[in-house]
């Protein structure tokens, strides 16, 4: 049964003109909300009051009231339902009600299944109540990768020059902070850069102009004026925007400092250049224009937008084309911006999106260092691991660049292999050499990330497969569900070689989960999915029997009643959850793009994106384009 509000909402949404969803015309005040939006908000408030509040008062606030059990305070959340903190509490409540975790079994009052369903539908109205909010676009420090690539692009040094900086998690979990250790290294790396680009022995005044620092002043030149020109030029590249006069004054001040201490013209410029390389304007993406003092949200300026887009898709600073458009103030024009997105998506540098997003989404970041028992998997050499990762990268990029649908990730009929990987696949066609090439797959059990060795290996233990981990992986990474962690006191399954339960197969052992009430709820979903992939061993080879020679039984039934008996059928079952698969990737990409977890108002934007991208069948280029054209990416919050 569809809830009336949803129909109303989807009707209104369809009526909203595109410009609202995209880059609004700059002359309109960013704070204004349309009449349609106001209407939506009013409707949502009504639904909340009539459907959500009574349910929570009746079943929840007895425990989750002013003395909040488990930290969930629904009393205060009801007071201010559109606040972000309230949103978290409601979200938690909804997921507990959904899985019948709450109200607890011993509670006097239990809602009927219909009441639960109505509550879950109604609480979705929350997102229409939230005020329009792109989230805090706090000035962002360049990640280690971005920093290294920026130095390479600007000065031609190798990215390895950043050695010593700590590894970082990009995207949603990015730590936008800076420590004394990092600052020390920024200074040391600045020294490395200038010494590499202009070795001390080459700093004697020469005639030939230097590509970075220009020519040496002649007798008639004013060295200080020339230094000012160099400062402006260097800062334009390093700050990714024109420097203000005050910023140039600071830099020329550093040049003067060198001169006053007896440094040559060139040495003084180098000191200034080092100053640029440790400045916050270089290390962070900073706005070109001071913050307006009015309003609650504001569009990013052209330069910030150029940087944000370029670092998202290429992990590099904006190139000459993007910078030129920003200089001419044209980047905020929707058709210009969209054309640039298409250009960036078609470039080979898009590979950075796999390194930053794809590998993380598919859970492959740890594969390189994952421990595999060499006795059990002697094939798992560094070369094979690299081939596995290359396969995932090439596949990911082909789906995106060829504008295929998001569902191709789950089920597809091609992949990329080299000789060693073809052996893992057991391909009949001859593939020789270490170069990766595109091959058509005949076996319906393969194709897509579920049958991909990199994924199958990453979700395994050092000596065997883990159906539970694979099940969790499919639910979380593909369907976007959040699987709660096991309760404390629960042991993991012992490896197959353990003695007390020697006679049980891994499947029988795993099914023990389902004999305990506290485990059943999750494992009845997880385990069948994991067992559906049991024909793939711990490094992704097809097998009929497990290590102890027992025939693999990959048949399973999901709680929905859908059954399957091969990985191919499992893929088909999963493919039927199109909305979940698409929404998951949209949400993950959006969180990655804005560098923070999604909350409150974001849900509304995701809903709109779902509709828009869905009209095009959830194609990947369309998806990325719509995400980067949304409010969340192109606006910033001015003040809380």
């Amino acid at each position, binding site marked *: 049964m569809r809830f009336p509000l949803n129909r109303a909402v989807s009707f209104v949404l369809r009526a909203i003109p595109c410009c609202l969803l995209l880059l609004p015309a700059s002359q309109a005040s960013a704070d204004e909300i349309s009449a349609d939006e106001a209407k939506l908000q009013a409707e949502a408030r009504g639904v909340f009051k009539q459907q959500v509040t009574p349910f929570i008062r009746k079943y929840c606030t007895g425990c989750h009231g002013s003395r909040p059990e488990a*930290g969930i305070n629904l009393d205060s959340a009801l007071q201010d339902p559109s606040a*972000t903190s309230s949103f*978290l509490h409601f979200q938690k409540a909804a997921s507990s009600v959904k899985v019948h975790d709450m109200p607890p079994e011993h509670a006097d009052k239990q809602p009927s299944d219909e009441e639960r369903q109505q509550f879950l539908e109604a609480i979705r109205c929350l997102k229409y109540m939230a005020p329009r909010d792109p989230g805090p676009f*706090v*000035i962002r420090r360049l990640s280690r990768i971005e920093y290294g690539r920026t130095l390479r692009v600007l000065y031609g040094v190798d990215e390895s020059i950043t050695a*010593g900086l*700590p*590894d*970082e*998690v990009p995207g949603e*979990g990015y*730590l936008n*902070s*800076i*420590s*004394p*250790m*990092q*600052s*020390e290294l920024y*200074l*040391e790396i600045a020294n490395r850069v200038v010494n590499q680009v202009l070795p001390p022995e080459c700093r004697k005044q020469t005639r030939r102009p230097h590509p970075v620092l220009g020519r040496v002043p002649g007798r008639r030149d004013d060295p200080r004026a020339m230094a000012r020109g160099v400062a402006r030029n260097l800062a334009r590249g390093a700050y990714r925007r024109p420097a203000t006069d*005050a*910023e140039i004054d*600071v*830099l020329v*001040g*550093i040049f003067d*400092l060198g001169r006053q201490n007896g*440094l040559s013209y060139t040495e003084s410029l180098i*000191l200034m250049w*080092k*100053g640029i390389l440790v*400045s916050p*304007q270089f*290390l*962070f993406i900073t706005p070109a224009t001071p*913050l307006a003092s009015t309003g609650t949200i504001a569009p990013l300026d052209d330069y910030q937008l150029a940087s944000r887009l370029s670092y998202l898709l290429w992990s590099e600073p904006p190139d000459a084309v993007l910078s030129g458009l920003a200089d001419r103030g044209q980047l905020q024009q929707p058709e210009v911006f969209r054309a640039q997105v298409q250009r960036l998506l078609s470039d080979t540098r898009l590979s950075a999106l796999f390194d930053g997003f794809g590998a993380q989404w598919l*859970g492959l*970041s740890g594969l*390189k*260092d994952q*421990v*595999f028992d060499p006795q059990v998997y002697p094939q798992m050499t560094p070369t094979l691991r690299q081939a596995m990762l290359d396969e995932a990268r090439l596949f990911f990029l082909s789906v995106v660049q060829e504008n295929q649908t998001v569902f191709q990730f789950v089920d597809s009929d091609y992949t990329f292999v080299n000789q060693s990987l073809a052996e893992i696949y057991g391909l009949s066609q001859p593939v020789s050499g270490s170069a990766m090439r595109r091959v058509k797959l005949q076996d319906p059990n393969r194709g897509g990330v579920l049958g991909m060795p990199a994924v199958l290996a990453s979700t395994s233990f*050092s*000596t065997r497969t883990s159906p539970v981990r694979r099940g969790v992986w499919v639910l979380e990474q593909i369907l976007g569900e959040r699987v*709660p*962690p096991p*309760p*404390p*006191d629960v042991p*993991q399954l*012992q*490896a197959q070689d*353990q003695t*007390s339960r020697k006679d049980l197969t891994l499947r029988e052992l795993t099914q023990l989960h389902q004999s305990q009430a506290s485990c059943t709820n999750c494992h009845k979903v997880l385990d069948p999915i994991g067992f559906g992939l049991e024909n793939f061993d711990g490094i992704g080879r097809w097998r009929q029997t497990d290590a102890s020679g027992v025939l693999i039984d990959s048949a399973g039934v999901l709680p929905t009643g859908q059954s399957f008996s091969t990985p191919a059928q499992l893929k088909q079952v999963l493919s039927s959850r199109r909305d979940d698969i698409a929404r998951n990737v949209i949400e993950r990409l959006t969180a990655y793009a804005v560098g923070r*977890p999604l909350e409150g108002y974001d849900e509304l934007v995701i809903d709109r994106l779902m509709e828009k991208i869905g009209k095009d069948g959830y194609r990947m280029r369309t998806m990325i384009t719509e995400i980067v054209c949304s409010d969340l990416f192109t606006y910033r*919050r*001015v*003040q809380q």
Partner: protein
Amino acid sequence: MGQSALIARRSVLRGAGVALGLPWLSSSASAASALPSRPPVRLGFMYMPHGVIMDQFWPKSASEFLTSPPPALQSLQPILDQCLMIKGISGVPISPFNGAPHALELSTWLTATLPDADTRGRVNIAISADQIMANYVGPQTLLPSLELATMPQTWKENQEGLHEAYYSHCSYRSPTQPVPAEIDPRNVLNRLFGRRDNPGQMVRANPLDRQMLDRVLGGARDLRRTLGRNDQMKLDEYLDSVRAVERRVAAIESRQQAAAQEKSGRRKDSSTAAAPIEIRIPEGDKRSEYMQVMCDLTVLAFQTDTTRVSTYIGSTPNGVSYPELGFTNQHHSQTHHENREEMVSKVAAITKFNIDQFAYMVKKMAGLPEGDGTLLDNCIMLWGSGLEDGNRHTRQNLPFIIAGRGGGTLNTGRFLSDVSGNQGDLLTTLLSCAGVPLDRPIGIATKEISEMRVAGK
């Protein structure tokens, strides 16, 4: 874990510290910072996740602590008289994050505080004990503090919606600012003592760098004025970190001057300190060798008074195995042992392995003369875990071993079998022994644990 790739070749650096990091000298200390002519107290933390096998860790009784210590402590036997063990220290209760035992064991370890529940998707916890001390004593040394780890801090796992960084960070400079750790010993060596294996690559202490930084800071303050409040807070972190670099450059300058004066005979080394220890960076990927070089670096940093505070995350929750011990199972999976003998013995072996590395470090300190005693006499070295029993995730009696007399403040050679206190109380006591004045208790602390101290000190 991939360290082998980072440590590309064998390198032996003899007396790497001579030029910059000088052993603590009573003369230079008093000249540089007007301290009394007594060695300063140093505080070091070393961590292992997932708890211990209790009956192999806790001594049977106070009287048997020295005579027949439990198996896990064997390697510490020669210096148990300089160690203190305390049982009865409880961890921070983790409700409402009951599903996040491992995300919280490390992040609450030195903060004694739970993450903020309303902003759990971001980092928002509390300044950690080591950073409180770094704020107080850091300005007197080359580095405010040293943070080391064995594994990269990039573990991605979401428990209870908590930010992933809680999994792998123990040091927090402010509630929102986790301090990253270094995992490459070569970088640590460079940072402590300059790039001696690659001359000409690093400009060591250029006074102009300090003045340049000063101007950059001025420009950053101008920028700050044009930003929104959230952005201003971000820029404050930048300003804070660059000021620390400025101080470091200044400290290097003054040490270079002291060294020059000594060389020219204008000043005398009146200390009884030993020569700086030698650092050997191993070639292979043996975990023990890797951890020992990190321990050596900590010893060297303390011996040369390059810093007075350190943390070493010897191992991280989840994903970690110990091939060197002859099995590839992951640490975490073995800790849920349900008392099965084979798994229990693996956890015991992993625990002993970690304590052995700690013992290697503190025994080395005990062999280095300093002032009237040894380096260890002036240190407080704490080894511990964020759970007591990894099988059941209990946190009632967190395992801790303290080595060192803390400059005569800690009453060592004892096992206090029934202390009643919490993690915050313990950290508060340790900072107090290190001479750090506190304007508020650390996390959930309510008191100091006076039984740990020498009466009247």
